[in-house]
């Protein structure tokens, strides 16, 4: 009984502000906010940047996750700690650090600007900020997926004539797909909600959280609330769709496609 009460209180703490926020805006004000070009552009930019980030984090995170799950070497724990580092770095600090690296005179930003790629105030800067704060989710989720697979399965595949890559592709990856996809969804969710790091490296073009902050500063609570609800609806909807796909139906299809 007490456990239910305590858990219920925590849930109420999470849900009540969202409900309160959702009930502040009328349908007309939501429509107005959604048709405002700035809000629409910011939301689309957030969706796009978060999707790109999820793709990059998965592409680079899966090999690292596999190494952490399978290889035993000195310094493995240190490597795992490095992977988790972004979880403990305050996001504004992350933004400043990224700015040093990706800014116009930074180690990466300098050479990149000669090639015509700018991170400061661009979508690439936004993606860099999102990637920094969210990549641990991709690595850790995929690592848990790989760890759950009996390493004997790969050995069996090798003995049957499969190269290490073939064994990974046909056996390990399909079996760890749930973990990999869950990681991608978490990265997406974490990225779309990121504010602190993004606002420092790319104040403009504004992502949805940055645009909402601008509206809050310029026009006050009511105006920003409508835009906030629009963002909330879009992110929740995409998150729920992706999560459903990652957890079941998509997996079943992939498994059927893998004979």
């Amino acid at each position, binding site marked *: 009984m007490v456990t239910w009460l305590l858990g219920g209180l925590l849930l109420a703490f999470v849900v009540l502000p969202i409900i309160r926020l959702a009930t502040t805006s009328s349908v007309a004000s939501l429509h107005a906010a959604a048709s405002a070009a700035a809000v629409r552009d910011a939301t689309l930019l957030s969706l796009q940047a978060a999707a790109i980030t999820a793709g990059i984090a998965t592409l680079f995170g899966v090999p690292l996750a596999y190494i952490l799950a399978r290889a035993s070497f000195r310094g493995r724990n240190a490597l795992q700690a490095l992977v988790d580092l972004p979880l403990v770095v305050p996001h504004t600090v992350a933004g400043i650090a990224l700015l040093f690296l990706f800014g116009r005179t930074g180690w990466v930003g300098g050479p990149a600007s000669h090639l015509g790629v700018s991170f400061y105030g661009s979508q690439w800067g936004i993606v860099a900020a999102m990637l920094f704060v969210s990549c641990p989710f991709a690595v850790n989720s995929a690592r848990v997926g790989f760890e759950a697979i009996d390493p004997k399965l790969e*050995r069996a595949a090798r*003995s*049957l*004539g499969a190269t290490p890559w073939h064994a990974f592709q*046909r056996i390990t990856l399909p079996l760890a797909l749930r973990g990999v996809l869950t990681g991608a969804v978490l990265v997406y969710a974490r990225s779309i909600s990121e504010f602190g790091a993004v606002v420092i490296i790319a104040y403009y073009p504004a992502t949805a959280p940055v645009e909402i902050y601008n509206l809050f500063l310029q026009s006050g609570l009511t105006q920003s609330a409508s835009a906030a609800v629009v963002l909330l609806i879009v992110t929740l909807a995409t998150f729920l769709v992706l999560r459903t796909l990652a957890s079941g139906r998509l997996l079943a299809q992939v498994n059927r496609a893998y*004979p």
Partner: protein
Amino acid sequence: MPTPRPGLSVSELSAQAGPFTLGPLSLAIPPDRVLVVLGPSGAGKSMLLETIAGLRSQQGGQISLTGTDITGLSAERRRIGLVFQDAALFPHLTVRDNIRFGPRASRRSAPDTTGDLLGQLGIGHLADRAPRSLSGGERQRVALARALAIQPSLLLLDEPLSALDQPAREDMRTLLQRLLAELAIPAAHVTHDRDEALSIGDDLAILVGGQLRQTGPATHVATHPADPDTARLLGWAELGHGTAANGAARIGQLIIHDRAAGGLHGPVQAFYRPEDIELGPIAQGPPPGAGLTAHVQEIIRTRPLARVSLSCDPPITAQILHRDLDRLQLTAGQQVQVSLLPGSLRLFRAR
């Protein structure tokens, strides 16, 4: 360089896993024979198979198969069929696709033998099932079919029966015996179970602590263990410590004038086969081998042989037929003549 022989030939093979060292060891399996590697758990049996299969890097030595040196080949190019203790079937593939995995992976344009294998192993009705819906015995059959589908030059079986319950184990053992006899490819089967070892193996290799203690025809090794560890693994029971001098040994009250005692001098350790102990009424002339009188301490009616604990020096436990138990009308406390038949004793120099 030794001349390559058909079958499997392993020379001076060694491998390392943390503090554990396997080998260096040498063994050979002719094409039509089954070698059983018998050893306690932790002896390095699985490690030996994985090293031969190329799944674990070796430190030294040479492996050749059907006359070709495969030491430098990666696992996927060795064509060695491997069956794991827990089958290790791919859980996301059907039985049929598990069996097809090998031929597809190696892209060999050989005729599809999946149907034949399904029939041969009696699993045709399971072809479209998922591995998780199979019983332990069915899983092992699928694992065996999957390993045979690559038409291996060598079959390695890593305790394939130990995860099975008794009836399934008997079925699988019969199937394995039949298949291995038909296939005429060299096979290595590792186990810690001596009944399994003696029923399946043509040859026996005893592995203890990463080292081969003894190899030879199974029947010979079983009757002539070369050291106490091997004797224990093969079901010999320890009789105790004693001394040997001038072709005779004394263990407690028991005097052994046996070939076993020949050539030994000083402290010895003796082993006996519990099923080679003969019990009879007192005073019927001198027993054929070594003997002494004892009191029956306890009778445990295990199957197939009953165990009779005997109070004597050294203490002995005999395993006898239930028929003999009834014939002798044995009861606890009764005095009996205990005879150890010739050949049922082994003496080792005590360390």
